[in-house]
C-alpha cells in the first residue's frame, strides 16, 4: 500500500449495552462518519484486555478506541470503573514508549448518544490522519516482512 492510498485504520471495542447501541443509533439516524473504524463488540468495557489493544497496534492498527457506558451507568454495575483504571494506565504506558495520545482513546458513550458516537469517530479519524500511519511497534516488521 503506497503512502498516497493510506487510510487510517481504527479498531473500536464497544460495549454491547451502551456504545454499540450508540453506533447502531448513529446508523438508524444516518449520522455519517468516516468508514475508517472497525467495530468489535464486547459485553462490557471491562472485557477489554489491554493486551487486545497492544495486539491491535502490533497488527497494524493506526488507532484504537474503547467506548463504554457512562460511569455509574454500567450494565454490570462497576465494570467501566475497572476499565477506566486499566486503560488510563495503559495510556500512560503507551505514551511513555512514544505513542501519540490521540491514537488510543477511551470514551463513555451512552446508547442514546448516536451523534456523540459519530462525532467521536470523526474527530479521532481526523487526528489520526494528521499523525499518519502508526510507526510504533512497526519497524522490524517492515524489515522482516520486507
Amino acid at each position, binding site marked *: 500500500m503506497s503512502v498516497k492510498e493510506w487510510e487510517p*485504520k481504527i479498531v473500536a471495542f464497544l460495549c454491547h449495552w451502551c456504545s454499540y447501541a450508540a453506533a447502531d443509533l448513529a446508523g438508524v439516524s444516518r449520522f455519517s462518519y468516516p468508514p475508517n473504524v*472497525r467495530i468489535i463488540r464486547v459485553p462490557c468495557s*471491562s472485557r477489554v484486555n489491554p493486551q487486545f489493544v497492544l495486539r491491535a497496534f502490533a497488527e497494524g492498527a493506526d488507532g484504537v478506541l474503547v467506548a463504554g457506558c457512562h460511569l455509574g451507568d454500567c450494565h454490570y454495575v462497576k465494570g467501566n470503573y475497572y476499565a477506566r483504571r486499566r486503560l488510563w494506565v495503559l495510556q500512560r504506558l503507551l505514551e511513555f514508549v512514544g505513542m501519540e495520545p490521540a491514537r488510543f482513546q477511551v470514551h463513555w458513550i451512552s446508547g442514546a448518544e448516536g451523534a456523540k458516537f459519530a462525532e467521536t469517530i470523526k474527530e479521532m479519524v481526523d487526528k489520526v490522519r494528521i499523525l499518519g500511519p502508526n510507526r510504533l511497534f512497526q519497524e522490524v516488521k517492515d524489515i522482516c516482512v520486507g
Partner: protein
Amino acid sequence: MPRVGVFVCWCGSNIGGVLDCPALARAAATFPGVVYATDYQYMCSDPGQKLIAEAIKEHRLDRVVVAACSPRLHEDTFREVLARAGLNPYLLEMTNLREHCSWVHAGEKELAQAKALSLIRRAVAKALRLTPLHPGRVKITRRCLVIGGGIAGIQAALDVADAGIEVVLVEREPSLGGKMVLLDKTFPTLDCSACISTPKMAAVAKHPLIRLYTYAEVEKVEGSLGNYRVTIRQKARYVDHTKCTGCGTCWEKCPVKVPDELNFRLSTRPAIYLPFPQAVPSKPVIDARHCRQLTKGKCGVCQKVCPAGAIDYTQQDSLHEEEVGAIIVATGFDLFPWEKAYGEYGYGRYPDVITGLAFERLVNASGPTGGRIVRPSDGREPRTVVFVHCVGSRDELKGREYCSRICCMYTAKHAHQVKERLPEAKVYVFYIDIRTFGKGYEEFYRRVQDEGVIYLRGRVSKIYQEGDKLIVKGADTLLGEPVTIAADLVVLATGVVPARGAEELARTLGISTDKDGFFQEAHPKLRPVETHTAGIFLAGACQGPKDIPDTVSQASAAAAKAVGLLLREEIEVSPLVAWVNQALCTGCLHCQVVCPYQAIEVVTEGGRRRARVKEELCQGCGSCTVACRPGAMELKGFSNEQILAEVEALCR
C-alpha cells in the same frame, strides 16, 4: 476445519443500495474456512430463513455468519434458525453491515465496500473459533423467604403463598404489621388503616403455606439463585408461645411501666406486653431491658399469674435454618431522626412538637388518647395546629437531599382530620412544593384547602416555646413576607429513611444500596423490583420512599417475579458466562475481587487453590478475564482467542 457459511443480506436497498452484496458474497467465499456464501434480499424474512436452513443442511455448514443488521436486533432470530436446522444456536456470528456501514457511509461507496468486506472477515474469523454452548441449568428450591412483615412483606408473602409456594416470613418486631398498622386512616380515600391491614395480618398467620417468624432476624444467607440457605435468629421472648393462650393476665399484672415506643412515648406499656391489641401473633413478649426479673432478678409476677405456665425466664435466642429458592426484601423505612438534626425546631425538647407518625397514633382510636387530638403536654385540645413539610427531606444541610414522597399527602390527611375533629381549630401548613401525583391525590389536596386549611408556601425557620404557645416563624414566599404563628400543636412531616439495619442486611444478602442507603434496584425503569443479585427481589419502601398503593403494587410485582422463578423446576442460565481454565489458574483470586455478582468461588484440590465460576450467578461481563494475568479466566462467546482473531482479521 469448521465449515462456515456466509449469508449477506441486502435489507432491500438499505444495504443493497450502497454495498454490492453479490460481490461481498463472492469475496467471502474465498476466505479460509468458508465453504458457502450467498446473498439475498431479506435474510430475516421467511424465505431468507429457509434459505439459511437449507444451506446448512445442503452444505453441511457448522458455523454461520449472517452479514445483515445489528445483532441487537436479529441475533435471536437467526439463532433460532440455526436451532431449527439442527445446529447449536451459539455457532452463529452476525456482522452489522447496515447500522455500522451502509447507513453511515452511503457517500463513500468504495470505502464502504472495503469496510464491509473487513467486517465479514472479522465475523468469519470469530465464527471459526465458535464452540457449541449449552445454557446451564439450576434446580430450584421451591420456597421463598420474605424479610419484613409490614404491608409490603405481608402482601408479597400472601401472593407467593396463594400461588402454592411455601413462604418463610421473618419479622424483627414482636408483631406483624409494620408501620401501616399504626396509621389511623389512609389517604386519599380515608379508609381505616387497621381495618384493611389487620385482616391481612390474620391471613398470614393462618395461611398453611406461610411459616412465620416474629421477633426474629436474618443472620446469615449462603448459596445462590434457586438455592439459598438462610440462618434466622429467633430472639428470646421469655414466653413459650406453644403454651401461651394470649389471655392477657400477665400484662395486666406486670408492675413495670415504660414509655411505649410504638406510641412515640405518648403512653406507657408494661415490660411483658402485646405491642397493640390486634397484634399477630397475639401473644406477648418480655422486654428484657425493662423486666425486673431479668434485670434485677426479683419480681416474677407474670410467672406467678400465668395460668398456662408459659413464662420462661431462661429462654435463649435460637438459630433456625431454612432453605429457599428466592428472597423478597421488604424491610420498609424509619422516620428521619429529626431530634438529632433540627435545633431550630428544638431538638425534640418541646412536647407539643411531634412527628406525623406520632400524630397518627394521637388521632387513632386505638391510640393512647382514644383518638382525641390533644396536646401531649397538657392534654388540652389545640386551637391552632401548624404542619411543617420537608423535615429531613429536601434538605442537604440537615437531612436528606431527596423528596420523601409521602409527606405532602399524609399532611393533607392530617390537616383534614384536625378540621374534621376540631372544626374551630385553625390549621396552617407550611410547604415548599405540593406533590400530588397519585390517583385522587390532587382532588384530596384541593378538598382540604376548601375545608379551610391554610397552605403557606415557605419553610419554617424556627419554633420555640413562649408560655404555653409554640411560636412558629415561617414565611409566605408568595406574598414575600415572614409569617409568625402562635400554635398549640406543631406536626413535623418527617421524612423517610431506610429502616435501621438496612446497610447490614445489604451486606448479609450481597445486594447494593444507593447513596441514600435504600436498596438498589437492577434497573430504575425496567427492573424496579429486582436486585443485581439474581433471585433477590425488593418490595416497598426499602427501595425508596413509597406510599401504600405503590408499596402494595411493588410487593405484588416482587411476588410475581419470585413466583415466576420458583414455579420452574429448574432455570436456564445464559451460557455466555465465564469459566476457569483450571490448568492455568494460580488461585490469586483477583477475579473474585472484581466480580460484581459474587459469582466466583474457591475450590481447593490437592492443596492448590483455584477459582471456579458459579454459572448461575455470572452475568457475563468479562471483567474477571482481564484481572486474570495467566489468562485462565475465559468468557464463553467472547473468548480471548475469539477477540484476538477479530482484531487480527480487522487489521489485515
